[in-house]
């Protein structure tokens, strides 16, 4: 029978040398490590303050783990112990079972649930336990690749961390809308929500945070198949929506979502769209014409076939405060759209184009003519249609560019007196273009990237030297036509400038 008791109480692991008592006592004093975890836990939760607990966490890894599993409501102050003792006294003579008063019972009950969730977590990666440590102060919870943590666990966290400000869930397949709803209800301070690759989180979550979290300013959703137009709509259309940053990536949402954003996103300053396959030109057009995005300052669009000439122009017209635009892998965007956009976007300061192969010098000139004076940073990375070779210049009919602009970098030199950063990586820019830049007296460039420009040779050395007077950063990586001796010389002479080669 004893064996059964021992097994049931989990005590069989207690080392036996202890019990042989005094014989060993002299040589090997008993260590506190003989205490089972639940006893150490009892000790730790009676440490008076956070400082003492953190000191103990430095003792060993096991102690850190145990301390991490203590929740705020499990911390015992001396007062609590006294009340327990009082109640204990009030039922004297009765069997030990009655010693645990109701309050204590509840405590123990909730301990167990929490401890379970935390245990699982420690097994998977231990990140959560660190977050829970001292969680009265900790306001960010990130759960990455945690398959074992389910709704119940997150529900406990929601209860225990009412001050949570940022929630970041990535690859948590066991978490569903129910848990996010609990977070939304219990954590009114939530300002940032990031959800990535969570197959069971859907529209309900967005609706809940939209209606409960008044302070929510940033939402990022990526690869969640259950999130659709309904979720985005309820998130944005809820009263008091203070959302300023919205990132939507690899979702199945349609034009409807963009229409809602264009209409209700009155506080939005930052938009990121990526891989929205079901959004068409119509979506971007409606978003621009919704006239709601008056505060929008920055937009990044990657791999969206909807960002066509018509779509981009509408965005430019609808967002008068747009300062930064970043377009990547937009296969349908051509010069006409870019120029029309540049005319509409009166505040544009930073323009980044990457892998937009239909953009040529024409579009580039158009941007410079319309926004050149305000541009601070211009980047055309890996846009294969962009060259400075006069012979390959396309017919001028596509856009009204003065004939003086036979070379895009000449155009840059003449038009952009405020330009500080220029990125023309992987383009067909040649020595001539660099020379044009160097000769522009009013230009005050600080960062230039010419990486992967195969038409730049050692002949550019004197021009780069000249540009180097104001440069703090120069990227000439993968320029195989620049010899190493030239690079060495540049590094030696332009000692103030960071050179990537």
């Amino acid at each position: 029978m004893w064996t059964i008791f021992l097994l049931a109480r989990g005590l069989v692991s207690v080392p036996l040398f202890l019990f042989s008592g005094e014989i060993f006592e002299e040589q090997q004093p008993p260590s506190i490590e003989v205490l089972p975890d639940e006893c150490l836990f009892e000790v730790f939760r009676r440490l008076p303050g956070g400082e003492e607990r953190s000191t103990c966490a430095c003792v060993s890894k096991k102690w850190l783990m145990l301390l991490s599993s203590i929740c705020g409501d499990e911390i015992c102050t001396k007062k609590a112990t006294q009340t327990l003792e009082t109640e204990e006294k009030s039922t004297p003579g009765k069997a030990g079972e009655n010693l645990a008063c109701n309050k204590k019972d509840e405590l123990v009950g909730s301990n167990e649930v929490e401890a379970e969730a935390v245990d699982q977590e420690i097994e998977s990666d231990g990140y959560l336990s660190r977050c829970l440590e001292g969680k009265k102060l900790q306001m960010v919870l990130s759960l990455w690749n945690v398959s074992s943590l389910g709704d119940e666990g997150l529900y406990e966290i929601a209860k225990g961390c009412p001050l949570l400000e940022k929630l970041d869930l990535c690859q948590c397949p066991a978490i569903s809308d129910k848990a996010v709803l609990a977070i939304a209800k219990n954590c009114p301070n939530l300002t940032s929500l990031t959800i990535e690759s969570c197959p069971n989180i859907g529209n309900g979550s967005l609706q809940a945070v939209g209606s409960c979290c008044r302070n929510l300013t940033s939402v990022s959703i990526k690869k969640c198949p259950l999130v659709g137009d309904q979720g985005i709509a309820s998130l944005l259309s809820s009263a008091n929506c203070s959302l300023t940053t919205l990132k939507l990536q690899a979702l199945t949402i349609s034009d409807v979502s963009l229409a809602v954003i264009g209409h209700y996103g009155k506080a939005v300053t930052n938009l990121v769209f990526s891989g929205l396959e079901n959004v068409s030109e119509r979506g971007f057009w409606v978003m621009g014409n919704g006239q709601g995005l008056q505060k929008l300052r920055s937009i990044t669009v990657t791999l969206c076939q909807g960002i066509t000439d018509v779509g981009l122009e509408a965005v430019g017209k609808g967002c008068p405060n747009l300062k930064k635009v970043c377009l990547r892998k937009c296969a349908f965007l051509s010069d006409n759209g870019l120029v029309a956009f540049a005319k509409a976007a009166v505040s544009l300061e930073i323009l980044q184009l990457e892998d937009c192969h239909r953009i040529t010098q024409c579009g580039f000139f158009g941007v410079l003519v319309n926004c050149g004076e305000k541009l601070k940073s211009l980047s055309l990375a890996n846009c294969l249609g962009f060259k400075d070779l006069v012979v390959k210049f396309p017919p001028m009919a596509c856009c009204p560019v003065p004939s003086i602009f036979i070379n895009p970098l000449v155009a840059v030199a003449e038009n952009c007196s405020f330009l500080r950063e220029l990125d023309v990586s992987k383009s067909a820019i040649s020595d001539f273009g660099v020379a044009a830049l160097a000769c522009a007296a009013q230009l005050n460039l600080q960062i230039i990237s010419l990486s992967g420009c195969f038409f730049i040779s050692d002949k550019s050395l004197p021009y780069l030297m000249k540009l180097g007077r104001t440069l703090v950063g120069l990227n000439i990586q993968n320029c195989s036509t620049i010899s190493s001796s030239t690079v060495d010389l540049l590094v030696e002479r332009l000692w103030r400038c960071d050179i990537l080669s």
Partner: protein
Amino acid sequence: MASAPENEKNASAPEKKTLTLKSMINNEEFVVDEHVALQSVTIKNMVDSDCAGDVIPVPTISGEILALVIEYCKNHANPSASEDDLKKADAGIVAKDIYTLIDLVLAANFLDIKGLLEVTSQKIADSIKDLPHQDVREIFGVENDYTPEEEAAVRAEHDWAFEGFP
């Protein structure tokens, strides 16, 4: 089954039922009133399930510790003891060296006596609280399994976390 001893007790007060607890480490035996011993949930469960013989063997607890446990149980089984008296008595029981305290925690945990576990845990916590972590390791015999880098990282993390903590 649970109420049987109580009824008996009420009916014939002088013939109190007693239990004998025997430490298996040094074979010391203690005869205690049943209602005193029943403060241990473990023993209560044994009695309730009829697997307690005349002598109850206690396998992991030395006689010295068992005596302290029984003292605690006697104090708390006395209905006339005031709260202050109990506190003083508890303080006396736990005023021991750290190794005795560790054994006491083990005993309280094994016998499932919540109150004793609480006062002993509190006592250990009190003796830990003012020590720097190196001293805690030394006094309590904890092996440091951190690498120096890890320890620095943990310390830095906690410094940050508890900045401005009251």
